[in-house]
């Protein structure tokens, strides 16, 4: 079985076979005594090319297959995976899962999703756009992107290279309540990282694009030029003295602030009481203008899916309404642990949209006046259990609404609860390259540690 982006598209026939495998695994688990079972079968294939300084560096062909099964013996659970789709290996995998379930202990929250929540129709989300790309074409595209960036300025002295990737994934999920669902999706990306040098040393930055359909890519030269501009802008970076000041997160950095919120609002962290959002349902966490919505069915969306990892139908739904936490992010297990219902988030969130504001980045800079614009964050330093936040940052010092000079080797710190409550504005400059869609975020005040 082979899915190829440059051969004939056999994805529908392959999906049928994956669906058959998933259903066979479930049936086999039931014959082995499981009272309930579910299974997923998948194939991911792709081509990845790396070029550097105008020459190809790597050409990689990828193909990954996997079958996973979870069995329930009453409220006891076991799971197993294999990369070998051979029937004998699949049989052993089911037996491994059953052997484990003989040793685990009953957990009342275990089990398949509520059948009433399962997806009954599967809308076409326009996610399948194979890219007819040969290695030679991928190399030429990478070379073009890198060359556009290197041509920008003589101070671009070196390159970490450009990459071009194209891939497709086919997934089938079945459970013993009779659900079977298949999805196919393509994902293509390009990126380039450049190095600039002056008397003070070297700086590196990058830019990328990420799409479902190759026609949606930004132009190759614009990606190279953007990487070059970002890299050059970092030359001569200074440190700041330790202070408190307003902080504006550029969209590519703002995304992570929303990501921390999503992690803290997720069932796994909540039922373990390992989140600062425990018992916060219905509480005002953000300013009243803030609206955060999950929209799983955006055509060609990077996080779009018709059903979650348990077959539960996904649907548009508010996460934060007028600044108030409207719901948690739950799969069946965490929902039962919390006495709630699944929100169709087994396996994670789909597209998350922070409703954009009216101001673009220059307007937000003017609104901030003096403060820090963060374009890159480094390290971990985020505790979801307390909300304490301390990360390395680089970006620009802003004076009177204008970029004054690049800054690096500083940290920014605060507590996420305060940071969310004291958000001043969200920008109109939404970054489309992620399943988290947000513009810039302006925060009233954080602690900067530096010299």
């Amino acid at each position, binding site marked *: 079985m082979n899915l190829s982006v440059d051969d004939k598209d056999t994805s529908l026939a392959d999906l049928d076979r994956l669906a058959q495998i998933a259903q066979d695994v479930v049936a086999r688990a039931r014959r082995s005594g499981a009272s309930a079972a579910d299974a997923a079968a998948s194939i991911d294939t792709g081509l990845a090319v790396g070029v*550097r300084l105008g*020459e*190809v*560096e*790597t*050409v*990689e*062909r990828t*193909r*990954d297959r996997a079958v996973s099964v979870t069995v329930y013996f009453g409220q006891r659970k*076991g*799971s*197993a*995976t*294999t*990369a*070998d789709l051979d029937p004998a290996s699949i049989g*052993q*995998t089911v037996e*491994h*899962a059953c052997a*484990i*379930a003989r*040793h*685990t*202990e*009953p*957990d009342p929250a275990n089990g398949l999703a509520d059948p009433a929540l399962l997806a009954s129709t599967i809308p076409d989300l326009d996610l399948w756009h194979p890219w007819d790309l040969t290695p030679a074409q991928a190399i030429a595209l990478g070379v073009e992107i890198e060359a556009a960036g290197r041509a920008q300025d003589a101070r671009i002295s*070196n390159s*970490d290279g450009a990459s071009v990737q194209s891939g497709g994934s086919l997934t089938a999920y079945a459970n013993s309540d009779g659900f079977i669902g298949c999805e196919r999706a393509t994902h293509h990306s390009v990126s380039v990282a450049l190095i600039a040098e002056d008397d003070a*040393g*070297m700086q*590196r930055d990058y830019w990328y694009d990420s799409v479902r359909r190759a026609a949606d890519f930004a132009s190759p030269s614009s990606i190279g030029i953007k990487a070059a501009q970002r890299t050059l802008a970092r030359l001569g970076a200074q440190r700041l003295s*330790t202070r408190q000041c307003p902080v504006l997160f550029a969209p590519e950095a703002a995304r992570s602030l929303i990501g921390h919120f999503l992690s803290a609002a997720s069932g796994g962290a909540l039922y*373990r*009481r*390992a989140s600062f959002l*425990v018992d916060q349902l219905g509480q005002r966490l953000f300013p009243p203008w803030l609206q955060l919505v999950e929209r799983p069915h955006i055509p060609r969306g990077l996080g779009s899916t018709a059903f979650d990892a348990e077959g539960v139908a996904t649907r548009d739904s508010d996460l934060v309404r007028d600044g108030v936490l409207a719901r948690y992010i739950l799969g069946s297990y965490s929902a039962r642990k919390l006495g709630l219902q699944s929100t169709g988030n087994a396996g994670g969130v789909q597209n998350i949209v922070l409703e954009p504001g009216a101001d673009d980045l220059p307007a937000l800079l003017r609104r901030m006046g003096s403060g820090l614009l963060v374009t890159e964050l*480094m*390290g*971990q*330093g985020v*505790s979801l*259990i*307390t909300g304490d936040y*301390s*990360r*390395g940052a*680089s970006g620009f010092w802003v004076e009177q609404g204008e970029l004054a000079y690049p800054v*690096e*080797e*500083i*940290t920014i*710190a*605060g*507590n996420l609860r305060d940071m969310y409550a004291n958000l001043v504005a969200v920008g109109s400059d939404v970054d489309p390259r992620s399943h988290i869609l947000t513009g810039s975020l302006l925060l009233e005040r954080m*602690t900067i*540690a*530096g*010299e």
Partner: protein
Amino acid sequence: MSDLIRTAERQLLTPGGLATRDLDRVFASLMGPAIDAADLYFQHSRSEAWVLEDGIVKDGSHSIEQGVGVRALSGEKAGFAYSDEIVLPALLEAAGAARAIAHAGANGVGKPLAIAPARALYPPVDPIDTLSNEAKIAVLREVDAYCRAADPRVQQVIVSLAATLDTVLIAHSDGTLAADVRPLVRLNVQVIAEADGRRESGSSGGGGRYGLDELLAGGRAREFAREAVRSALVNLEAVPAPAGTMTVVLGPGWPGVLLHEAIGHGFEGDFNRKGTSAFAGMLGEAVAARGVTVVDDGALPGRRGSLSIDDEGTPTRRTVLVEDGVMKGVMQDKLNARLMRAQPTGNGRRESFAHLPMPRMTNTYMLPGAHDPGEIIASVGRGLYAVNFGGGQVDITNGKFTFSASEAYLIENGRITRPVKGATLIGAGAEVLKRVSMIGNDLKLDEGVGVCGKDGQSVPVGVGQPTLRIDSMTVGGTA
């Protein structure tokens, strides 16, 4: 070693009707005038994990992965393909895709394969079978019971026990034929403690390349449990960390993540060959204070970061990176060593058969100095004493790195006073190590928990160091 080859052949080649001699045919289709080198990496990996939470063993999982990665090298170029079926037609197809990196030419041959000599740093045991399932579960329950009994503020205990066995067979066109059977085990304990509406967590764990029986011998599980509880309770008392530049004392062991980020990545061969590391071209120059000696040593028996041979079949060894403050060496795989006219150092590693190898760290640590740790603390008027860390990150081009403390204390007038909340520390690699002014006599390696990520590939690593005084470093607190 030939026993290992036989074991690996039986596991990896025999089921698909292959033998080592068939690999010559694959090399014949891989090699050509424009191909400098090629290799085959066969891998079978079996893992098992058990999880206890809410006082019950609620989940367990088992997984099997296997396949072969085929790489052809031409100058700086690498063609790569892999297959999860280890049969001759799949191998030849992958070889065809990999060699497309260089223009087609007449078929050549590699050197005849010969078994490479190596010493085994760990026993070829399947760690999953070194303990019965009943015994594994008993350990999880014992750790849970110990943590809950230790303090009434303990509200949640999550314990996981994981074991993996990797069997690899490596054939390289330079004639290398090598095999390795690699056990890896790990126990992890996370505790959530709650008091007066405040919640904090603490975690601990460790492992290495041996069986579960060895991991659990000598009460080590109970030590991890005690440590996780202690750390959670300390954090319940923590006050906001200071913000600004100050003297920092790092405890021994895992805080060696400093070395991994501050210099380790910048000393990897690929970044030095490409000139993208802040340390490129600095061999022989001072990069740290006098007295600082840092090594990468993949040949320590049984350690998590150790390998008898790397993933290109090169025996691992001890490489001196910094000696008495001077940059001495770079970590190499075969590709970068050839292009830099250097020797491979046994640092060619890959996450799996489905990934390309590259220079990676193994166990990276600083050798001990002369100072008593108590004397180092006593020397500090006001500063931070950081004893445990989460992870770190580095920008190898400008050398800026971060690492995030998860347990730290204020030092006031030479004494450890109050615990402070976690905070990120930031600095520049080449500058921070020049500010090391005291090196302790208490070298310790970490317990065996490290995972290093690079270009999307994760590999197990180790770190270590003695207590260190750094005269100034930026601490990212709020107070």
